[in-house]
Structures are given as C-alpha cells and as structure tokens.
C-alpha cells in the first residue's frame, strides 16, 4: 500500500462510505494519490456474521450521541438516533441495495410544491439532466438490477406476498428492483445465494459496497494510503483561510496530523457537520464553511415506517434478499392525497431478534406476542418517502456529553413536519389494504427505526447564503474543502439516497481533478 508522508500536503478524504469510497476510487483512478482516513476497521466478507445483533455490534457507529425533538426515536433510542456504520465501506456495508433515481421535479421541490409552512424547501443547483450520466455510471458501479441490461432478482417469499397484494389493490409499478445485489455474476461479484443476510455485510460478496469494490480497486492503483481506525477530530486552516491539515486519533488513540492540499469530508450527515463545527477557530468561530449558518441544519431522515402483516400460512420472509421488492405507484407528487411529495414501498425482512426490538419499541403483552408467535407467517414492507427539510432539525454540538476523545458529541434534533405525519398515516392505511387483500389476519404499524437514511446537513445550493456547498460539492467559503456524502442533499426526494450520493461523488470528483490539474487548489 502507498505510504504518504504525514508532512506531505495530500489530498485527504475523511470516511470511506458511499461518498468517500467512491471519491477515493475516482481520484486514484485519475492518477491522484490520496490519504483516506477511516474511523472504523476493514472487515472482509469472511468476517461478516449471519447474526443481526452480532453484525450490528461489528459494524455500527456506537460512539455516544444524544437526541432531542418530538420524534419517537428520541424516546425509544435516545442514544442511537441513527443506524450508521463505522467501518471501511461506511454504511454501504449494512445497506440493502435499493437504488431508484430521483425524478426530475424532486430536484426542484420549492418550485414544484410551493411554499409549505415550516418547510425549508430549496431547488437543487443541479437537475436530473445534469445527473443522468452520473446516475448511469453509479448504477453500473453498483450493478443495479433492471438497469444496464442486468437481470432482475427472482421473486422471494416476501416479494410474492407484496407483489400480489400490490396487484390486487390496483398498483402496477412493482418489481424486484432496481437493487444493488447481483442476480447473476457481474463485475467480479457472484450472483446472490439468497442467504437473507444482506444487511449483515453479505458473506457471499454479491452485494455492492465500497468495501467490496471501490476501496480495494483504489488500493490496487497503488495510490491510496488507507488508514483504518483513524478518527478525524479537527480540520485545520492557514492564515488565508484555506484548509491545510487534519488532526486525527490513530488506532492507539494517539493524536496525529496529516498535512493537506485538499480535504474532502465524507463522514455522513451526522459526523460531517459535527466535524465542521468542531473545527471552529478564531477566523471561523461558527465552524468551517459555515458563513451561511446552514451547517448542521435541514437534517432529514426520510419519512419511513414499516408495515408487518401476519397471515394464516407460512411466508418465511427471512429467506432471500432483504429488500428486493419495490412499488412506485405512490411516489408521484399528488397533493390531493393531503401531502406533498410521495413514497416508495419496499419489501423488508427482519429476523426475530430485530423484529422484537423494532416492531413497536416498548410494546409487551399478548397482542405483541401473538404477532411474534406468528413469525413464520409474517411479511413486511418499508415505507420510504420524502420528508420536509426544516431549519431547526439539526445536528449541533452537545457540550454536556463528551465522546471517547473528550469532544462534544453530536445532538440530533428532529421534529416531525405535519406533511411527514400525513404521508405516513396515508401510507400505513394503503399498506394495510395491500396486505389485507392477500389475507392478512394481523397488521402492525411499525414506527421509524433509528435513521438509516441521513441527509441534508450541509446542503448544496446555488447561492452561498442558502447552503454549504456548490453544485460541485465544493464549499462556498473555502475553495479547497469539499463535501461528498449524504449531507450535501438539498432536499431528500422519495428515493433511497445511496445511488444519488454515489452519482454526486463521481460528479464532484471531476471537479476536484480539474481544479487540481489547473493548479487552482
């Protein structure tokens, strides 16, 4: 592996997930040496375990965090607002693989939905047309099924119930993808063996993650200095206000400094704004890249909610790909339903260990155990829709609670917008009808889990007063500071975010490369 001297002014990427891993791959492929600092370890497919709690403890980001706001997560999982990973590959190690694109108007929700009280909507500085070539490249990288001539996954048991229910209630747009796990061998990865442990890393290596594809290939170029167990605590800058280095803790907890020519922050929507805020200085008293005051704001987590339904006959939902089932019929903006935006329905299967904890946190007694007792006969779906960006839904530093390095932990504040609640209730009702049409005898409205989709805390904007980065992921304030991860999302759309994060990262990398070549940074 490449060794870059700590005193050498390097291109430094913080995080190796969807955003950071893709950036490392694109830059090294273009001949640019990089240092990638990743807080977590590098698990290989043989390290993954077919065990829900086991995999969670192996990969999840468990550093202290706090919560506030009226969201139920703050009550049920007050120290665990999100379900994110600390590992090479970031949360793509845990992700399932649903890869829809945004629709055209989802890049312009302010123009489309109009002014909605309490919602801080803003049009993106990019359009679907700008994004299309990058979407194609991201789909080819991920190996999305149903795209680029790639085969669809076969129907598993959970999908059979879902699709037949969809059909019976009159929906049309159901399919087993697009999904980022191979149905057939593609790009060096085998077809799925349907082991049911896709969330747990996928021991078969059929699922795309940056730990599986981008990071190993970046290492193969000989240009990547990947430092695992390296947790960045501060980005430093020079007198001119340009970033010039990062401070991090190494595997032994010792403080190190890497000099930097360019810094690309890819720590996800919680850690990226936190790091910018932690990097405050006398020149930047509100944190780096924060002249707009937008760092940490407009935190979104998608609508989400799940519906589990129990039947008289076996389903065995745990067998097969976890989320290979899609239905798009409710995704279009149609205010007649009583809310703006729309949502997808996607199959979701949990084992008894997770289902019991997440079905209805805090629930107990006969009704709950009746449901659990019928575990073999349960089918499940996830509802994922656009939630409204709100200025006060935000990541801030909680100076009362310190992490293992003595730094303030991030507090994640989230209040639900009325639109979110209206959409979720509508979606629950529709989902109940869907499952009842195929004979459900008991249904359960499961509230949102700790957030798996974390978006929007360093939003992209055309104008510097409205956001943190421009349409190339470059911070409005500091020209050699980029952000490439879920935090740059201006608004959330209904689509699962990772395809868009990956496509944006590919797009941003072109700007980093050209600016470096021109000697501008």
């Amino acid at each position, binding site marked *: 592996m490449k060794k870059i001297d700590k005193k050498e002014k390097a291109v430094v990427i913080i995080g190796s997930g969807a955003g950071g891993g893709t950036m490392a791959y694109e830059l090294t492929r273009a001949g640019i040496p990089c240092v990638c600092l990743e807080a977590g370890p590098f698990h290989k497919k043989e390290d993954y375990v077919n065990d829900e709690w086991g995999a969670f403890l192996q990969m999840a980001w468990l550093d202290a*965090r706090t919560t506030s706001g009226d969201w139920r997560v703050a009550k049920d999982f*007050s120290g665990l607002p999100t379900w994110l990973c600390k590992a090479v590959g970031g949360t793509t190690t845990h992700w399932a693989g649903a890869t829809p694109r945004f*629709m055209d108007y989802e890049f312009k929700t302010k123009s489309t939905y109009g002014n909605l009280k309490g919602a801080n909507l803003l049009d993106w500085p990019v359009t679907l047309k700008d994004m299309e070539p990058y979407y194609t490249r991201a789909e080819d990288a991920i190996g999305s099924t149903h795209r680029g001539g790639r085969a669809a996954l076969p129907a598993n048991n959970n999908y059979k119930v879902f699709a037949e229910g969809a059909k019976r209630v009159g929906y049309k747009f159901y399919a087993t993808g697009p999904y980022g796990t191979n149905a057939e061998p593609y790009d060096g990865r085998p077809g799925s*063996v349907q082991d049911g442990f896709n969330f747990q890393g996928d021991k078969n290596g059929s699922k795309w993650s940056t730990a599986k594809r981008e990071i190993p290939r970046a290492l193969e170029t000989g240009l990547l200095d990947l430092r695992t167990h390296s947790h960045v605590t501060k980005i430093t800058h020079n007198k001119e206000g340009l970033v010039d280095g990062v401070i991090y803790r190494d595997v032994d907890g010792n403080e190190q400094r890497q000099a930097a020519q360019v810094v690309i922050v890819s720590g996800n929507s919680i850690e990226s704004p936190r790091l910018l805020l932690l990097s405050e200085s006398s020149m930047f008293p509100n944190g780096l890249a924060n002249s707009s005051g937008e760092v940490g704001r407009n935190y979104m987590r998608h609508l989400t909610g799940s519906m589990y339904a129990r039947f008289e006959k076996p389903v065995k939902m745990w067998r097969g790909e976890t989320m290979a089932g899609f239905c*798009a019929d409710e995704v*279009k903006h149609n205010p007649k339903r009583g809310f703006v935006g729309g949502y997808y329905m996607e199959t979701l299967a949990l084992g008894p260990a997770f289902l019991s904890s997440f079905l209805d946190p805090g629930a107990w007694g006969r009704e709950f155990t009746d449901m659990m*007792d019928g575990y073999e006969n349960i089918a499940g779906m996830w509802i994922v829709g656009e939630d409204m960006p709100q200025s006060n839904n935000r990541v801030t530093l909680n100076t009362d609670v310190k992490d293992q390095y003595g730094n303030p932990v991030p507090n994640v504040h989230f209040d639900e917008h009325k639109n979110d609640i209206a959409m979720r209730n509508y979606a629950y009702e529709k989902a109940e009808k869907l499952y009842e049409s195929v004979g459900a005898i008991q249904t359960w409205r499961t509230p949102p889990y700790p957030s798996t989709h974390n978006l929007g805390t360093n939003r992209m904007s055309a104008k510097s007063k409205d956001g943190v980065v421009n349409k190339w992921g470059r911070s409005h304030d500091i020209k050699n500071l980029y952000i490439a991860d879920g935090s740059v999302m201006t608004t959330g759309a209904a689509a699962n975010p990772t395809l868009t994060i990956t496509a944006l990262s590919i797009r941003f990398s072109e700007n980093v490369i050209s600016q470096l070549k021109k000697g501008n940074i």
Partner: protein
Amino acid sequence: MIIIIIEGGDMSISRRSFVFGSVAASVFISLWDINPSKAEVKVGDNAEDKKLIIKMVRDVYPHDRFPEAPYERTANDVITKGNADSAKKTMLSEGIENLKKANYGKLNFKKSTKYLKKIENSGFFQHVRSTSVVTLYNDQEVWGLLGYEGSSFEKGGYINRGFNDLDWLPDPRIEEHPDLAAFLKADPNRLAAIEDMIKLN
C-alpha cells in the same frame, strides 16, 4: 443512552458490549461477553426470586408453546444485568420485594397483566422488559420455536432451499411495468392524465 464498554482497551467484537437504551431504562447487551463469574451476582440470585422473575418475563412476553428453558435463561440475564452496579441492584431488589408484597407469584395471567400495567413505568419493569425483549428473542431455542432458521450462509443460503417456496399465491412479475419510465418522467401536473393512461392498459 449508549455506552460502549471496551474491556482491556481491546476493540475486538468479542469484548465489546454496549448499553442500548430508552429514557426509562437501558439494556446491557453483551452478546458474546456474558461472563457472570466476573460480576458479583447477589440480588435475585436464589430459587425463589428467580421463579418470580421467570414468571414475570413470561407474563410480559407470553408464548404458551415456549418451554421454561428460554424464559429461565432470560431471567438469568435480567438478574445478571440487574446487578451491574449498585443503582441497578437497588432497583432489582426493590422490584422483587414489591412483587412479593403483591403476592405476584400466585396471580393468574389476567391479574398479573393488570399488576404489570400498574408498574409499567417503573425502572424495574423497564429493566425486565427491555432486557427480555432482546435476550428472549435472541435465544436460539426461541428461534427454532418461531421457525426462524438463523445463520444460513454455511448451508449455501436459500437459493436451492426454498427462498421462493411460498405456494399459496401465484408467482408475480419481477420485471418493471413497461409504463414505469413514463410514469416517473411525467410532470406531476400531468399526473391525472397519466393515471388515466394506466387505467386504459
């Protein structure tokens, strides 16, 4: 609240545990690291108290077809984790005392449920409930009783072992509907027109 406890400064999973919690209570999850010999277990560690806790776990998560063993393992975990520190010990011993005062051991399911409803917000109840929901449903015997098959990769997954063996519904389409692209592309203002188009198909 989540607290990571890293014993001996070693980050390996086998030594990692954490507290997974809600406002009312927190559960000490240590899936590999249950080593009761390390903890000084005193409160609740006798046959009489254990019997009460076993009954309570069963009343909170009643499964008539489950044998005693998984409930007993869960109760042991409730007791071990209830001895984690002095505050927990106090909580546990007071909780058990109150069960005794209420003659809980003799109450039938209906009356037990009524009593548990009354103490639902207590730290003791939350400790028992939130420990049990994790431990009981992470128990391999319980998985078997529920029909869940656990780890499958070493058996080749389910590709040839029934990932699609559901036979009480027809086999669905797996490809996308031919109109999907037009539907997604359509201007939302033209939605009504598109919906009509779909109905005509």
